[in-house]
């Protein structure tokens, strides 16, 4: 009975014929390549990563102390405001984080502005807000006009150049309501947000470029897919060859 049974036992790891052995070896090789290519690469990517701050975060760190102590120069205040504005320009910021960033931006703006500028800015912000609230079409002339006017007024206060990409969104982030002082709580919250959005896992693999891509992105989004098709193709060709060799007809 036992010997009879023996003939009909199948196990991937204990092939019973040269053909199944050849198949097992091929499958194991392909699996190994597959696993290393997908998971091995990402483990490496993880191991060599260095949390790298964006330059703007270094700017923040350089100026924040004097800004909070109240002895910052105009330049430093403008840089400080620019940091929040830059993060607000990113696409995905959670609503509560937006609040922190806008508080810091508007607080800094009105620290910089002199009394005359402050009054003019507040009036302009209020009138833009009024137009904005009732517009249903962002291409409407009065809305565009109000936006451009506010931008023209705020940009010089913040010391931005006209070609600064952050000016794109500036009018939409201005507000007449802002904290009177940056409390420790405000600062802590702000720094949490900045650290979350301005530190990235970079490494040599992300800095290298291939065909315009960051290397790791190219590897995953383009190369791995090519590799998968290739592995499948190799398997099929090899199986056809093996089947022919061992006289298997399927």
């Amino acid at each position, binding site marked *: 009975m036992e010997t009879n049974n023996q003939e009909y036992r199948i196990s991937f790891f204990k092939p019973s014929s040269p053909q199944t052995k050849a198949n097992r070896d091929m499958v194991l090789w*392909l699996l190994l390549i597959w696993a290393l290519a997908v998971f091995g690469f990402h483990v490496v990517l993880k191991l060599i990563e260095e949390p790298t701050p964006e330059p703007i975060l270094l700017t923040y760190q350089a100026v924040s102390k004097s800004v909070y102590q109240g002895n910052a120069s105009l330049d430093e205040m403008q840089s400080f405001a620019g940091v929040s504005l830059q993060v607000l320009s990113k696409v995905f910021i959670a609503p509560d984080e937006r609040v922190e960033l806008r508080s810091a931006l508007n607080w800094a703006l009105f620290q910089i502005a002199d009394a005359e500028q402050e009054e003019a800015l507040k009036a302009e912000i209020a009138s833009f807000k009024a137009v904005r609230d009732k517009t249903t079409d962002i291409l409407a002339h009065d809305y565009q006009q109000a936006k451009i006017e506010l931008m023209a007024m705020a940009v010089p206060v913040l010391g931005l150049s006209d070609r600064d990409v952050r000016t794109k969104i500036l009018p939409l982030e201005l507000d007449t309501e802002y904290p009177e002082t940056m409390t420790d709580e405000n600062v802590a919250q702000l720094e949490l947000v900045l650290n979350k959005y301005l530190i*990235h896992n970079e490494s040599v693999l992300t800095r290298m470029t291939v065909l*315009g891509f960051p290397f790791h992105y190219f590897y995953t989004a383009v190369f791995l897919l090519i590799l998968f098709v290739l592995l*499948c193709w190799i398997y099929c060709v090899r199986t056809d060859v093996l089947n022919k060799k061992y006289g298997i007809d*399927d």
Partner: protein
Amino acid sequence: MKRFITLIILLLSSSVIFAANAATDLEGGFKLGPAIILITILVVFVMVGIVFRAKNTNDFYAAGRGISKIGSGMAIASNWMSAASFLGMAALMYGAGYHGLSYVVGWTGGYVLLLILMAGQIRKYGKYTAADFIGDRYYSRTLRAVAAVIAILISIAYCVGQFGGIGLLFKWIMGIEYWLAVVIGGAVVLTYTLISGMLGVTKNMQIQYVIIIISFLIPLFILTFKFDYFWLLPQIGYGSVVSDIVGGIPLAETADLVNKYGHEFAMVPMPEYAMPWDPATGQTFFQWIAIAFSLMIGTAGLPHVLQRFYVVPNARDARWSVVWGLFFICILYWSAPVYSAFGQILSAHPEIGTLEKDAIVVYTAQLGNIHPLIVGFLAAGGVSAAFSTVSGLLVAGSSAFAHDLYVKVFRPNSSPKVQLRMARYGTVVMAVIVASIALLKLALIGRLVAVAFSLAGCTIFPLFLLGIWWSGSNKQGAIAGLIAGGSVSLIAITYFIAGTQGLALPFHEFIDYYLGAWYFAVFGAPLAIIVHIIVAKLTPETPIEIRKFLTESVHS
């Protein structure tokens, strides 16, 4: 049929057109051009469906086993390329950057496993459905019934995301509310599935593949050309777009590169779009690996995918059809990230407002000022993608119900006519259930679909893997493994649903992270396999007839 078209036209004409609340007109009201394109495509599908109408149960289930390798490859691709691929993947990358690539890799890499571990052997085993295989290999009617129920659950989970996508696109095209769009879209896809049956669907699938892929690619050539990137091969040309997002794009000297609303094609540096597991996305290294792994083994355990191999004439064709299928799928997967990259830049302005991520493919085309008819064609392609998958899933689910549950378990002597009728009832009931869940909008489309993959990875995948490759795998082991995998699935899904309802179950942070609803197979599947092996070793061996069949028919 006629009544349906009348109904649709009636609904179209009477539908309340909602003025967009946002200040943009991306959503807008009823769009005539796209609606005509969509109706034309659907009519073509149904006509082809009628011409190749299912005549008997054999046709309904397995399309008469007469389809060529490349044709079958296209059918695999079309069946596979769903709303999750067409809309959901770009949405995930748009919202979570590099994290979204784990879905791209997971949904393609799984085919390698499927091919080298299973495809040919499944065809040699020669059963109609996944439950057929499981019931036969594990010589248990109970297991067959359980497998059939799981197949139905997987189909439902998979379909929910598809109905979500259909709803979003019908909403966009018709300018109606989401719930109404889900109802109308669901009714149309149901009618279509019922009429054509699987033979019609398989024939359609090749047409559908071509329509889906062309509609998806055309806007990419236009976008890369318009915004001055290498446009001859957008799938490579967008590399510079990714690098530009990382490094930021300054305002150009001339302002001719703008989106639909005149916003310059410029942005601050956003490395979080391309850097791995970026803190800004809230996703971690573990989650990247877990998703890729779960989706891969899920691919090799999805009943409606496994079932594809029964329709090719022989094992060699089964193998080669995977290569072709994967290649055809990759064409879409190489392209999807292009949408999210352009979408990122074109929507980088607060005036655009928060966009529905799952519709970012369509919004990107709109924001890029692509001709409305081409955008309409794109949306219609998305509907086709969801349709082809839904019809395949409804067939898989309803055949599991009619063939595996009703006939094999409850009424073995049913006539083919009764069987076909039961399959049709099953289809209707499933569609209603799916539409109801889709109305809840529980998560992003891609993630909803990923739930089905983890479920398949925890339950069906171990049964196929061990059943094919180890004769020691037996009924007791299978049951124990299913209980283990099923329990993990149940826990993960329960926590997920509780979470969406705002309930905090004990240890919910721990469970939500390690057994997230879209990747719980990362632990569930290995556990199921280990339990299966241990129990099988301790219990009586598989009967000799089955071992003999395995040796002589499957492994020779």
